[in-house]
């Protein structure tokens, strides 16, 4: 087989290394220091799993982590449900009045500064006299992440051939069955990718969560943020390393789902 890929020149190699270092060096340092035996963050004291041990005995931190994971899972599920329905309505529905306005409004959280979303949600919850805690953060995260799910699912839907649904109807399916038996199996990878995206977005949000959470229900990022203000404990490094690992796994799974989606159809969900 001929060499179709040109080999990296020395210059390209250097710029690639520098670019990757810029992106990943801080993370690598954080990961390495999470295994530091020393109490001082910046002094290397040999390898140890001490801070991981510490984290798993830190009740408050574990509660925050659990809070984050459950907010992430519930809000991602709600966002996926609503976002998929919105995507179906936008991609498949009849051209209803105000469709352009509706789709524009749906995407506004993509560009809206988080501080504004957070503040407006806070005002809403105060006005409704809702007790702030798990559900307020979950609802806030659902509104934040739903549009991302919609973008992913809608692009997959619009790449799907409409005649597939027509063929299903021609072969005896009513429109709902045609959607469930033909369209849904084909967009499942995009839906999974959308869920993962929503979950990771929820997991690392600080701004909106800090506006909408209440006492005693801090998410992990909020907890970390407030701990760091009092001084960085090596335990934080360990927690962050675990979060990085979790997110890495999710991203790998999501990109596999998206690959699968492109193998099945003409175009993949952008991710």
């Amino acid at each position, binding site marked *: 087989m001929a060499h179709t890929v040109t080999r990296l020149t020395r210059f390209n190699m250097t710029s690639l290394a520098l670019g990757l270092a810029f992106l990943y060096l801080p993370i690598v340092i954080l990961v390495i220091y999470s295994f530091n035996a020393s109490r001082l963050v910046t002094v290397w004291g040999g390898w140890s799993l001490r801070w991981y041990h510490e984290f798993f005995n830190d009740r408050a931190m574990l509660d925050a982590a659990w809070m984050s994971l459950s907010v992430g899972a519930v809000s991602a599920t709600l966002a996926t449900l609503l976002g998929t329905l919105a995507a179906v309505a936008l991609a498949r529905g009849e051209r209803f009045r105000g469709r352009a306005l509706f789709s524009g409004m749906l995407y506004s959280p993509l560009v809206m500064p988080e501080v504004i979303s957070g503040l407006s949600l806070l005002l809403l919850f105060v006005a409704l006299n809702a007790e702030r805690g798990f559900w307020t953060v979950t609802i806030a995260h659902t509104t934040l992440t739903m549009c991302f799910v919609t973008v992913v699912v809608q692009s997959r839907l619009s790449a799907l*051939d409409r005649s*597939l649904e*027509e*063929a*299903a109807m*021609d*072969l005896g399916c009513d429109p709902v*069955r045609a959607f469930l038996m033909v369209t849904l199996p*084909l967009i499942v990878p995009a839906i999974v990718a959308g869920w993962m995206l929503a979950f990771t977005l929820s997991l690392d949000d600080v701004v909106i969560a800090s506006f909408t959470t209440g006492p005693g229900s801090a998410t992990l990022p909020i907890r970390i943020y407030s701990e760091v203000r009092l001084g960085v404990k090596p335990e934080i490094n360990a927690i962050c390393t675990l979060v990085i690992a979790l997110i890495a796994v999710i991203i790998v799974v999501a990109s596999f789902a998206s690959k699968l989606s492109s193998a099945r*159809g003409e175009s993949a969900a952008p991710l």
Partner: protein
Amino acid sequence: MPLLRIEGVAKSFGNFRAVDQLSLDIRAGEFFALLGPSGCGKTTLLRMLAGFETPDEGRILLGGNDIAQVLPHERPVNMMFQNYALFPHLSVRDNIAFGLKRAGMARKDIATRVAEMVALVKLEGLEKRKPDQLSGGQRQRVALARSLARRPQVLLLDEPLAALDKKLRESTQGELMELQRRLGMTFIIVTHDQEEAMTMAGRIGVMDVGRLVQVATPRNLYEAPASRWIAEFVGDINLFNGQVAGRDHGRLTVATSEAGTLAVSELWPPVTKDVVSVAIRPEKVKLSRRAPALGEGGSQAINRLEGVVADVNYLGGVTSYRVKLETGAVVRASMANTARLDVDAYLAGQRVVAWFTADDCLVLEQ
């Protein structure tokens, strides 16, 4: 009573009238082609028969029942889509079985029917493949098997061969005809390819701007087109505009500015207008080095046009010539290459006589 009767059907999209007051009868067991240029409404008509569009006006009677408002999944009609629309997540077997499962057929019967269909379209051994593991021709067969599996009363085919290459298209045309004869099913095919329509269909309906302009057998469509537009749309034709100068025992004399006075046999119905076009198909124009003797056209009147060969296109089976007349008009003639050595060929620049009989001409109102 025909199997399918389309009665005054109309459909508009916004201000665009896609199908305009169209009526058509299709008999059981017929292979019918809807032919027309793109945008003529033929696909819209087919989609109304399948139920994907509902007519604004008119009735569609299938076996006497009006199905115009019946939903697609409740019609005893199936469609083969232009891009096949195979379900990418299902195997060949599951694609074919899809409609049978929906019909609530017993498991055992489904297996039998699928096997029968697979054999019918010669896809044995490929049952477990997914559509993306098949060639274009194989996909086309799966689509055909899937649409035939439910044994519809009418099978609608939307440009079924457009995605195949020429050789495969020709062999598939033959197979489709053979299949239609064997199953005795009614096929309605939509195509923009006149050769395809002429090869396969028993009758052809030509559509233009949402209307059916002629329904005829392939032969009548070609030899007796109902209008100048159809004559030009179906096949190649030479047209000379002129005025009727005389009428005598079913023979018209037409004075044309481009080709002088031409003698034309008049067909039924008689021409009512004075301003007409004389039309002659290129293969009915003969070329010779000198004027043909009187006996050569039988007892018929012969039209002789003198000119110079402008160019020669050798196409294998036929050679087509463009002969420039003294008036500047061009007459196209095509001659079958019946001998391997071209003793009869004419060269560009050569003086020739292009001639044709009065019976071979058509008179078309402008």
